[in-house]
């Protein structure tokens, strides 16, 4: 059982709790390990007391068993173990009879209840594996699902699984199975949690540290076990090194420490901050011998620290030499500030040599606090980002003016926020840490542009959106356009594959009212026109499937959910059609039986093209291809597999899940309408400011289309924007709405007012027929407000034919 080691929220877990120690010992023969050994002792004592009919002693032992935190499944395993050993089998029977007769005390009764519950879990486990092994996957799946629904004790599940090596084989064979794969993956996660709990068991680690002093075979065995404990071993090994009572172990620990290899590195480099020079020198040697480049920044930091003793500094130099001998180019890392920045870059680009084990749900981030190493668990998907931010922070400690480090920190923070799985938290951040945008805004445009440049380069919608949001509220016209290095990330974002990023970038740029042409400025109007089409939030999808029937079924499901869908039997033909008819795509569905390219080739092609790199790809697994298709889908977080039989909810859930995981901005109906209104508004303002840089006529068609929507605000804004497009094609549609008796009076008045603006700005572009209609309208319209609005338009058009005279004459009363 882990507990909170220091105040604060979340899953902060300190190695300090391990020092308190829970009982742990792996005895392969019994499959009893970790706390189970203590629990077995209490259980055995209780059963013996039951046999002796000593109810008081039994009650005490049951109480201790409860205090030791026995789980239902563990209790069932203990009972089964007692029966197998034979000597206490009768006691178990007696215990159950006492429970049935109400002869147990409170503690005993609680244990009896745990046993009943645990036997159900044990049956589910047993049946799950049995039915899986005989190919009844539906029954096996139900058993595993039921078990997982009860959050079983991971160490107890691990003990059960390891009783029979075929059970691991069942888990690994069925991990992608269409029926049982999901629950098998759940079981694997439970087993891994069990392994992690065992590996982190402090008593086990302590025993193995002490066994290092044994003969060579014992030493080797202890090293193997410590290696299995991985990053959890160094904190206790360091504690032993610092303990004067354990001095005789120093030599063997120093020898064993580097043998733990790379898993030891993360806690070791953090521990280099300790003030104990003697121990620190051992750690420096170990870090050098382990031989990974990621240690270089920490060693350089130690060397540059004014408080570092000459002895330690000399040891650092030796370690750096050892690293250099192992092929690490130490000189290329520069000083500590540059080295930490370089390390941060490696984390940001998810360098494989630094990544956490992606099979596990959580990873450890290590801190040196209060003289001990402490670990904080973070969800694995954000490990790289958290470490990147830490490395940036270190870089900034050594060089407070390191602008690229600050920009990288902003980008990593935004990405961390986007990748944090739902219902989890990042316990490395203090309470009220603030949003990513908050930090981006505080940093100012220069740093935001730096972070945005990175996001554009790596096609990261979530980071890009955060930066643009910050720029929108902080940047002036000039600072919007150029970052410190002279690049134009915001302008480049106009070509970003994700539509929401493009639109937000265009709105931000246009609101800045730039006066000079900039690279990619030709894309501003098309993107604003694209934004105008977002009213209602229509999504666009391409379905590539050679089978018409399944293609139509999938397309229908998408259309029913607001998608505009293009269907094609072939990928390249489909992409060509989509480019012609759709400004962007929100999802691509690929049938698993497509040809030229086949589905794997198509995925590879799409992921290699910049414009499709951030689009969710759904693989439609056809009969007989489900396992291969699911395996392909598991190769990337931008892929998912569904079957034709799956309901529409599954398809949409998968699209949304991928979109969320990659930070792709999903455009809802409300957001789409809001963006369209903002686009119309900014076009109107560009016209009002008479900004000659942008050819507003390029948005004319989209503005006219916006007039036909049912959103009044958008229609009025679009009409006013059209007023600055000097052509008959812009003025006539506005006039048509104004004359339409079916429209409500407010809209019609707004249209006449827009015509008045058009008249002032562009002069009359209306046809003679429309002018005649307008004059008649002004003469004959009985509704005074409408008539007055029309008269304003008529006057502003400043017609040479003097229609006012005609109107006055028509009302002549003698």
């Amino acid at each position, binding site marked *: 059982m882990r507990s909170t080691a220091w105040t604060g929220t979340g899953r902060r877990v300190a190695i300090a709790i391990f020092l308190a120690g829970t009982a742990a010992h792996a005895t392969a023969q019994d499959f009893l390990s970790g706390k189970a050994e203590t629990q077995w002792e209490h259980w055995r004592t209780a059963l013996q007391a039951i046999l002796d009919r000593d109810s008081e002693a039994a009650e005490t032992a049951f109480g201790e068993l409860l205090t030791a935190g026995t789980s239902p499944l563990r209790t069932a395993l203990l009972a089964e173990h007692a029966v197998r050993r034979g000597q206490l089998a009768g006691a178990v029977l007696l215990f159950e009879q006492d429970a049935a007769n109400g002869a147990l005390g409170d503690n005993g009764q609680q244990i009896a209840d745990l046993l009943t519950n645990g036997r*159900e879990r044990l049956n*589910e486990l*047993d*049946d799950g*594996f*049995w*039915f*899986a*092994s*005989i*190919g*009844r*996957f*539906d*029954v096996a*799946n*139900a*058993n595993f*699902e*039921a*078990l997982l*629904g009860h959050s079983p004790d991971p160490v107890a599940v691990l003990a059960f699984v390891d009783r029979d090596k075929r059970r691991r084989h*069942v888990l690994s*064979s*069925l991990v992608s*199975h269409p029926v049982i794969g999901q629950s098998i993956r759940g079981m694997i996660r439970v087993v891994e949690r069990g392994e992690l709990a065992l590996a982190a068991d402090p008593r086990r680690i302590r025993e193995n540290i002490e066994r290092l002093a044994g003969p060579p075979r014992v030493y080797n065995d202890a090293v193997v076990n410590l290696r299995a404990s991985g990053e959890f071993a160094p904190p206790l090994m360091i504690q032993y090194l610092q303990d004067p009572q354990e001095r005789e172990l120093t030599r063997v620990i120093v020898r064993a420490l580097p043998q733990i290899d790379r898993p030891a590195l993360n806690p070791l480099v953090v521990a280099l901050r300790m003030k104990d020079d003697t121990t620190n020198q051992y750690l420096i040697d170990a870090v050098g011998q382990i031989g990974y480049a990621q240690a270089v920044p920490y060693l350089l930091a130690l060397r540059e620290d004014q408080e570092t003793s000459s002895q330690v500094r000399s040891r650092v130099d030796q370690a750096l030499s050892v690293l250099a001998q192992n092929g690490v180019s130490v000189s290329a890392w520069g000083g500590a500030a540059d080295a930490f920045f370089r390390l941060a870059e490696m984390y940001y680009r998810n360098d494989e040599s630094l990544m956490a084990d992606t099979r596990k749900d959580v990873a450890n981030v290590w801190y040196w606090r209060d003289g001990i190493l402490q670990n904080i668990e973070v969800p694995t998907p954000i490990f790289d980002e958290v470490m990147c931010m830490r490395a940036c922070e270190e870089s900034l400690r050594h060089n407070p003016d390191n602008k690229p480090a600050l920009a990288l920190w902003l980008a990593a923070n935004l990405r961390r926020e986007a990748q944090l799985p739902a219902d989890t938290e990042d316990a490395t951040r203090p309470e009220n840490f603030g949003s990513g945008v908050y930090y981006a805004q505080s940093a100012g445009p220069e740093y935001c542009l730096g972070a945005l440049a990175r996001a554009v380069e790596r096609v990261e919608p979530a980071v890009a959106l955060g930066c643009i949001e910050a720029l929108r509220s902080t940047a002036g016209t000039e600072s919007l356009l150029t970052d410190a290095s002279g690049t134009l990330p915001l302008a480049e974002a106009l070509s970003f594959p994700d539509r929401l990023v493009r639109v937000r970038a265009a709105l931000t740029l246009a609101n800045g009212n730039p006066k000079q042409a900039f690279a990619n400025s030709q894309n501003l109007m098309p993107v604003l026109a694209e934004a105008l089409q977002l009213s209602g939030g229509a999504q666009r999808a391409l379905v590539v499937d050679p089978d018409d*029937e399944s293609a139509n*079924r999938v397309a229908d499901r998408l259309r029913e959910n607001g998608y505009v869908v293009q269907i094609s039997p072939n990928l390249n033909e489909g992409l060509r059609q989509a480019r012609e008819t759709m400004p962007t795509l929100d999802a691509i569905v690929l049938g698993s039986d497509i040809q030229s390219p086949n589905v794997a080739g198509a995925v590879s092609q799409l992921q290699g093209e910049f414009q499709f790199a951030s689009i969710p790809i759904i693989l439609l697994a056809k009969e007989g291809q489900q396992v291969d298709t699911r395996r392909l889908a598991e190769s990337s977080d931008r892929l998912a597999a569904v079957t*034709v*039989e799956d*309901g529409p909810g599954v398809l949409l859930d998968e699209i949304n899940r991928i979109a969320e995981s990659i930070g792709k901005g999903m455009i809802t109906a409300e957001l789409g309408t809001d963006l369209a209104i903002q686009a119309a508004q900014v076009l109107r303002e560009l016209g009002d400011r008479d900004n000659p840089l942008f050819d507003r006529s390029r948005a004319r068609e989209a503005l006219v289309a916006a007039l036909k929507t049912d959103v009044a605000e958008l229609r009025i804004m679009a009409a006013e924007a059209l007023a600055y497009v000097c052509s008959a094609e812009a003025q006539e549609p506005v006039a048509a709405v104004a004359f339409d008796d079916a429209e409500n009076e407010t809209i019609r008045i707004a249209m006449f007012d827009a015509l008045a603006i058009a008249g002032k700005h562009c002069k009359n572009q209306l046809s003679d027929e429309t002018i005649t209609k307008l004059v008649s309208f002004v003469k004959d319209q009985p509704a005074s407000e409408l008539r007055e609005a029309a008269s304003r338009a008529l006057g502003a058009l400043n017609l040479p034919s003097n229609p006012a005279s005609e109107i006055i004459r028509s009302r002549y009363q003698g």
Partner: protein
Amino acid sequence: MNIVAPLLLLFSAQSAIEEPAGPRPAAFPITWEFRFDFVSPPRRIDVILPGDSAPTTFWYLLYTVTNTDARTRKWYPRFQVVTDDLRVVEMDVGINPLVFNAIKQLHTRTFPDLIHPSKAIGNLRTGADNAIESVAIWRDVDLSSSRFKIYVGGLSGETMLVTNPAFDPEKPETREIDRQGRSVAVEVNPKRFTLRKTLEIRYNHPGSAAGRAASEPVRYVTRWVMR
């Protein structure tokens, strides 16, 4: 080597074999049960199918099924192979006649009355005189893997209902799915599962992968399970 293996004889040699987990059949038959004799191990045959240039490998199991009950019963055989990596491969009922004819020709002396798998399905009248000789054939499976199991269903009327531990009373038991334009109800949340008394034949294929090509799998368990 052909080994005709009467089932009852086989059970006598099973005392050292692990007991199955999960629900077990009744210790003695509680309802009708067919006698099932088969040739062990399954055989391999390579046949060039029409339009192909290379031969396709098929594996087959020759069997004789006899109704020892007093009444005519239906014989709905279900032969499944479960491979070492837990792939379930169904018997190919609609097998190409070429394949069946090739098998029949090979065993014409020992199985003179061999009938096509599709014709073996149906009424099985009582007595040895009405026994059916047929064959279960599989394609797309490699039985030279290190271990595999064959499950033969339809040999007994014994069934068992087991509770679905994951049953959710708040969810519907079935879901409509669209299958080739037709709406079909499939069970997604059944209250119970039905298990049937099924014959399990386990094979081991010792040796290296290369060596297995030249050797035969060894049958090491034949027993009833509820599946």
